[in-house]
């Protein structure tokens, strides 16, 4: 057990999760469960985008579904209406989303906390209404059909896995880089950060752009998975689910965020035996988890683990292994 823990510590929790994800399809997962797995993987990208925006930079946003919608629809419209190759779509959509993220970032200069949230909800609703009413371009309430895909089935899964892995490693490395430290400085105290020479506005914009690009990629994957887009997939509910995933994952914790994105995605499916009441039970669980975030903090678990398997004394630590 201790050896396993040491190994995990060496390769890191995030990498271990991806190793598991790499192996899961080899076990022969039934197609529906496989779809849930893919959804979870697609959500991982949105969660990472929020880890950067909320966890690192401290900017609370409920507009993530709007950004995913921008990514998915840009890809869909470019590929269906303009016959662009899916690969170019894959590049163009995140760029477009990044641009939207830049615009969404400007209000954050003046707004904090609940006001920023209101602003992002309004953005997300505006995107949804625009999609709903521009029938010629987006198919409106009937949705956008027959979207060409980059890959299908298992290939798509592994492609998504690679992209998500790169994004996760990037997010991890970002945390310790100059940029990540600037983000965290802004989260802790904007005025102090500014006086230490952090250009708060530029870094806020950067956080919004990075976050939007990740959400856009997730949108492209969403379009690829179903080949069909409908404004109902990008509602306020989606945004709040993304937010809850990040919070339950521990805000700035990459590994935790990834785990909770799979957990929250599959929770309604795991509760399927409660046919009608499952969504209520699901939301009660989420509510309780937010209510008891203090209890669920990673430190508490570490304390329990430490009590169960006391670490060998200082010798290990002196060698610099920890």
């Amino acid at each position: 057990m201790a050896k396993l823990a040491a190994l995990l510590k060496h390769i890191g929790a995030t990498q271990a999760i991806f190793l598991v994800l790499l192996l899961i399809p080899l076990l022969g997962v039934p197609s529906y469960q496989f779809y849930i797995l893919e959804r979870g993987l697609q959500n991982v990208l949105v969660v990472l985008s929020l880890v950067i925006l909320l966890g690192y930079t401290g900017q609370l946003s409920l507009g993530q579904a709007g950004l995913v919608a921008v990514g998915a629809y840009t890809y869909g419209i470019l590929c269906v209406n303009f016959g662009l190759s899916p690969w170019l779509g894959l590049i163009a959509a995140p760029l477009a989303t990044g641009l939207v993220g830049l615009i969404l970032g400007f209000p954050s200069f003046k707004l904090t906390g609940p006001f920023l949230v209101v602003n992002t909800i309004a953005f997300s609703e505006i995107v949804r209404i625009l999609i709903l009413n521009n029938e010629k371009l987006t198919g409106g309430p009937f949705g956008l059909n027959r979207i060409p895909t980059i890959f299908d089935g298992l290939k798509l899964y592994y492609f998504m896995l690679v992209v998500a892995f790169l994004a996760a490693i990037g997010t991890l490395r970002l945390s310790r880089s100059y940029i990540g430290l600037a983000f965290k400085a802004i989260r802790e105290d904007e005025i102090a950060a500014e006086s230490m020479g952090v250009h708060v506005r530029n870094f806020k914009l950067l956080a919004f752009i990075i976050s939007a690009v990740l959400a856009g990629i997730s949108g492209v994957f969403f379009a690829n998975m179903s080949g069909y887009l409908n404004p109902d997939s990008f509602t306020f509910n989606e945004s709040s689910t993304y937010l809850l995933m990040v919070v339950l994952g521990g805000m700035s914790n990459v590994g935790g965020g990834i785990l909770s994105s799979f957990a929250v995605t599959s929770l309604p499916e795991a509760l399927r035996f409660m046919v009608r009441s499952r969504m209520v039970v699901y939301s009660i669980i989420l509510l309780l988890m937010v209510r008891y975030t203090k209890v669920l903090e990673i430190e508490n678990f570490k304390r329990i683990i430490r009590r169960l398997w006391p670490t060998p004394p200082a010798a290990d630590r002196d060698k610099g292994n920890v």
Partner: protein
Amino acid sequence: MGFDTVLQILIQGLNMGLIYALAALGISLIWNATGLFNFAQGDLLTMGGFVMLSMFAKWALPYPLAFVLTVVVMGLLGYLLSQGFFYPMFSQGLHPDIIIIGTIALIVLVQNGILLLWGPHPQRFSTPLGDHPVHLGQIIVMPYYLWNIAIVVVLVIVLQMFFKKSMIGIAMRAVAQRPVAAALMGVRTNQLVALTFLLATGLAAVAGILIAPIIPLTPEMGSIVALKAFAAVLIGGLGSFAGALIGGIVIGVAEVVFATLVVPTYKDVFIFLILIAFLLFRPRGIFSSEISEKV
């Protein structure tokens, strides 16, 4: 366009506006007492409408009885939410963002609860005055418009009295202005926060009852109504009683005017753009200088 059409549009706008104002008032009250933006206010409104639907339309209780019962039930729910969910989070000293996220988790719960109990289909009920248009001189209005205006006017007068004259109302204002001093004077903060939630949820329930004849109730309508209520709060200035009322009316009239004169499909976009503009350029509302006193 004749004068009577203008009047008709104004009555319609005033109606929507007063409903938004009630929701906005609830948001403002909670903001004053706790510094929290309760995003679930819109969904509590929807739930109030649905509870009324059960009592009035399904169980066929008389309208006044169903009305009072709905407000009481929802108010109690608000009280319990505060005591069991929100207040413990405040007293734990959690980061305010986490508590905001708590309200969002509550939205998910309320929406799914409504979906389970009342189903996904749009439903409506009317008022005792029925659904036949009335002629008032030149203008033709639906009777529930007049009904709604009457109820909100009475409610606002009662609330004003409550805040100015009653002990609890004065204590609420005290907590809003100087929480520490109020606590030192023997005001029990947790009870008052719970009472504020009770009052706010009751107001949301009234708004839900009044909106049902105009807009059919659906489980997910709450977030859009909440957003408009926020627009009302921001236009009127956070934490101000009169501001919430005026902001609500401005939003309601602007919405109806835009829908009639420009395009109805983009009326929500129009309101949200106003909201964003206010957030960016006048975050303290139009009346920030005139009305600095909190509720």
